[in-house]
């Protein structure tokens, strides 16, 4: 019974989150719908050639209906890309947060590694993609590794910053109360770092998609990045837009899931907004 109550409370929270994200953003949704309508009608009125700019409706039609020009197995390509960036994202999230906790556990190790991470983060990591391709060959694993490398550093840097930015007074207080190091981590450091972790994960959600797509650009025989590059060779613009729409939706969905977890795990951060 109690379990049921807890589940239903979570469901109510979920429902509220969904409703609020629609209601709060109705103006933005209106502008975006307006943007697409403007696009559709200006292309139709100005008779823009399709290889320059297709209408959004034609791009969507390419996703669902058989076309005369190019037929892609959309389900396969979408599945490949989604698989790549989801694995990339999950591996980054788990290893980034986990490694950050291990590193911050030892102060000296943290002081040594933090400058290194910020340094690496300021480098254009994507340039390593062709070298990874050379080492690992074509395939899904290569793209996952690229997605991982591109999105890893924002997560670990954010988590370490969050674990470290605790008020000294608070630490003094619990030390006075004989808190163990584990207790400090579990009760203070990790909860305190949640906002930082989530902002890192939000960056990571877009970066892992970027990594997967660039990997597919460089070399691959499937995935949405492959479709885009292949259509570019053929000057066949509508599938590029179809792929862009799917990628954006997937990116927005991943971002939204991260935001949802943020709400569920840090209810306190959103309570003050309501008041």
């Amino acid at each position, binding site marked *: 019974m109690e379990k049921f109550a807890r589940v239903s409370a979570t469901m109510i929270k979920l429902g509220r989150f969904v409703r609020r994200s629609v209601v709060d953003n109705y103006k933005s949704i209106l502008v975006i719908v307006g*943007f697409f309508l403007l696009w559709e009608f200006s292309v139709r009125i100005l008779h823009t050639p399709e290889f*320059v700019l297709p209408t959004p409706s034609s791009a969507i039609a390419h996703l669902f209906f058989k076309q005369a020009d190019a037929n892609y197995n959309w389900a396969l390509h979408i599945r490949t890309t989604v698989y790549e960036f989801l694995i990339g994202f999950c591996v980054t999230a788990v290893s980034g947060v986990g490694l950050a906790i291990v590193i911050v556990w030892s102060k000296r190790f943290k002081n040594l590694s933090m400058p290194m991470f910020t340094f690496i983060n300021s480098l254009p990591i994507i*340039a390593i993609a062709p070298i990874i391709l050379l080492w690992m060959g074509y395939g899904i694993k290569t793209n996952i590794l690229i997605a991982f490398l591109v999105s890893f550093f924002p997560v670990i840097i954010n988590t370490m910053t969050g674990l470290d930015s605790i008020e000294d007074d608070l630490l003094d207080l619990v030390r006075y109360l004989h808190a163990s190091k584990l207790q400090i981590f579990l009760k203070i450091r990790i909860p305190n770092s949640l906002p930082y972790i989530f902002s890192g994960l939000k960056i990571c959600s877009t970066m892992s998609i970027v990594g997967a797509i660039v990997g597919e650009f460089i070399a691959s025989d499937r995935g949405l990045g492959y479709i885009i590059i292949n259509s*570019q060779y053929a000057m066949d613009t509508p599938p590029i837009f179809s792929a862009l729409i799917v990628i954006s939706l997937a990116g927005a969905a991943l971002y939204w899931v991260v935001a949802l977890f943020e709400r569920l795990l840090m209810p306190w951060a959103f309570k003050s907004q309501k008041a």
Partner: protein
Amino acid sequence: MGKSVTAFIKKIAPKLLYFFLFLAVWQAVVMVFKIKVFILPSPIAVFQHLLDPSIAVQYDWWHHIGATLMEVLVSFAATAVVGIALAILISWSRLFSQLLSPIIILFNSLPKIALAPLFLIWFGYGFLPNILVAFMIAFFPVIINTSAGLMAVEDDLLDLVRYLNASKLQVFMKIRIPNSLPYIFAGLKISATMCVVGSIVGEFIAAEKGLGYLLRDAQAFIDTPTMFACLLLLSAIGLALFSFIGFLEKICMPWEHVQVEK
């Protein structure tokens, strides 16, 4: 002046030391395990490809460096100017904010890098598509950071100057813009890295010059030392731009610098 030079050397010395240590370990690993050059070249081989005239002449390094550097610098300047200007416009007028913000958010959630092939169709080969890709990627951190900085002013301060009959322009010039400087510079630092990333990806997809092009070209010939040399040069370009912004930051916000040194 002499003091600042010694301070600079003191600051940079450990970093250089780490760098050379890293190169030494890398060289030792390659030599001890006899790793084949096409898998992992030794740093000496990489530098030979860059500096040894008899080898370097095949690659025409300056030609490629110049192309990439120009793309990076032009796109960076464009992101800085357009990003900051648009952010000021948005926080100046409610109408602009309501019109532009949803579109900015929509584009921000779009993986901009995927637009690169489209720009290629629209503008053909050359500098323009690469600069545009870099601009699209690097533009959003600047505008988002700047508008966050312009908004993050203490209400008490605003109340105070309103009480003193400050005009809107004065509030912007004396409070909002100085207040947003740390945010702007943080945004510009992200943008610097992103500009390099954007130019490289543009060159990956289609170009006839530039370090990204050379990287892909070398990959086709399994010419690994050249690839690492490109990687080194690209990192150097990114770092140079990054430290230049750090330098500007110190000049524009001397107060922050003093606080840190305490």
